[in-house]
């Protein structure tokens, strides 16, 4: 792969309910933060990829509505429906094609404006299973149980993910739910869909993220510190939940293998300094770490108990507080990329991982992690 880098990132504050802002206001804010961060103007942007979802936005062809706020008028703009990591993958491909030197990628959603249970129910097949009434939480609860059954992961270990990530969020001024909580608080919170308590689930959130990707020549042209993209891969599993081995994320294993090998990383655990993974639910952080090869299968819960994944641990995971502390769908994965960029530049503030040089960011699309996108980022070229 030719060299390319992330040269600017912008994240809005993640909030439960941005009553004073429209979706376009959020995008405007994130895009301008990213431009300022990259020391660029909108004229330096060669093309734009927006990431949105029509159901979450409540309008069809939602990508056309977000173009104005992204500065896309009179530029080549394209869109991705799904998580922001997939939008960024497309943005990167456009840079690598040689046709564009820079791509601005945006991803946004306002969960507060609709009913997430109804929207995620509509992801199920309308002929076979939608009318049964499952949604993302109940489907993931079933996956959580299958994962716990196979690996012996306990409710307490899952709760510890929530305790860690909400605690990390206390250090992140952009997060929605900084909380000092205990395992007992998590286990005592409302049981929404057994085995998932309220505090095992990420909240409904509003937020936007923008990222600027540049080719090698343009990356050093504007004066920001480039973070180099060393490996990227995505991979998808079957659509029907019943076709998959639900307690395993085989598509993530494949995507991670390819991304690490592209980055010439043979022992991810010893070479990766920080990870931001898609923790929409507590069990997912553990399950994704194992599937990515950052932990022996079934051992993530035990490692978490030993403190491996804390900010000062062997492999800090979601030092920003993760999605459990604020989960704007669609933007979720792009925020993971932006957070790793901040870490590798030494700009993560109170949750900075000392000496972080290489990091992995991860995004998910579809029910129960049907498809996964893995990014390996590096301080060095």
């Amino acid at each position: 792969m030719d060299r390319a880098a992330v040269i600017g990132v912008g994240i809005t504050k993640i909030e439960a309910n941005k009553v004073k802002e429209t979706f376009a206001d959020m995008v405007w804010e994130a895009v301008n933060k990213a431009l300022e961060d990259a020391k660029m103007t909108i004229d330096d942007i060669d093309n734009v990829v927006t990431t949105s979802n029509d159901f979450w936005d409540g309008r069809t062809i939602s990508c056309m509505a977000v173009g104005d706020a992204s500065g896309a008028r009179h530029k080549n703009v394209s869109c991705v429906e799904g998580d922001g990591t997939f939008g960024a993958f497309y943005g990167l491909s456009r840079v690598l094609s040689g046709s564009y030197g820079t791509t601005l990628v945006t991803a946004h959603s306002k969960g507060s404006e609709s009913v997430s249970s109804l929207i995620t129910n509509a992801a199920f097949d309308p002929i076979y299973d939608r009318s049964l009434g499952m949604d993302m939480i109940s489907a993931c609860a079933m996956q959580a149980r299958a994962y716990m059954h196979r690996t012996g992961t306990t409710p307490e270990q899952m709760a510890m993910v929530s305790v860690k990530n909400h605690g990390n969020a206390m250090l992140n001024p952009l997060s929605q739910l900084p909380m000092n909580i205990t395992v007992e608080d998590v286990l005592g919170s409302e049981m929404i869909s057994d085995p998932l308590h309220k505090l095992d689930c990420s909240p409904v959130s509003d937020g936007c993220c923008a990222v600027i990707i540049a080719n090698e020549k343009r990356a050093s042209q504007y004066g920001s510190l480039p973070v180099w993209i060393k490996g990227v891969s995505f991979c998808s599993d079957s659509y029907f939940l019943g076709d998959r081995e639900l307690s395993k994320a085989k598509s993530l294993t494949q995507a991670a293998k390819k991304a690490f090998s592209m980055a010439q990383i043979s022992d991810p655990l010893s070479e990766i300094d920080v990870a931001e993974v898609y923790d929409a639910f507590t069990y997912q952080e553990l399950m994704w770490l194992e599937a990515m090869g950052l932990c022996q299968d079934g051992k993530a819960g035990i490692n978490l108990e030993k403190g491996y994944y804390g900010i000062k641990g062997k492999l800090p995971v979601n030092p920003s507080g993760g999605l459990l502390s604020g989960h704007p769908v669609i933007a979720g994965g792009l925020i993971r990329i932006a957070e790793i960029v901040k870490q590798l530049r030494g700009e993560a503030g109170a949750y900075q991982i000392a000496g972080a040089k290489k990091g992995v960011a991860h995004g998910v699309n579809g029910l129960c992690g049907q498809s996964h996108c893995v990014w390996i980022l590096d301080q060095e070229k």
Partner: protein
Amino acid sequence: MIDIFADVEPMVFKSGINVPYSWWAGETAERFFLALRDDKKIMGTGCSICEKVFVPPRKVCPLCFQENMAWVEVSSEGVLESFTIVERQLASLPRKAPVIFGLIRLDGADTSILHYIEDADHTDIKIGMRVAAKFSDERSGSMHDIDCFRPVR
């Protein structure tokens, strides 16, 4: 700076999208639903290459990417692969909570179907237990021609 909105309720525009759809089931699903409605039989399709039996049936094998599939009847009994007890009245739920959803691997099938589990003790239900379909008395050709799955005692 004075916040002119400080004491003002934010303006909200309430709306909704209500678009009717008519989904053609397609020949494969149609045959599955007719067997369910008329004969209380659960049908799958088996791939001539990998020999996996898919329920619900597929016209094309998703693993081998080929369409030589044969119809096979599978059992209305099987094993509970996973489940969740939904305690909150989620907006998507058509039934009153608590509702138990399960993934059921029917005998003779290589994939699992989603459905309700009923008449199961909430403390006793577990992965691996055997469950059987209870067919609805009135059937119209949909997934609801199976009312639910119940533990085999």
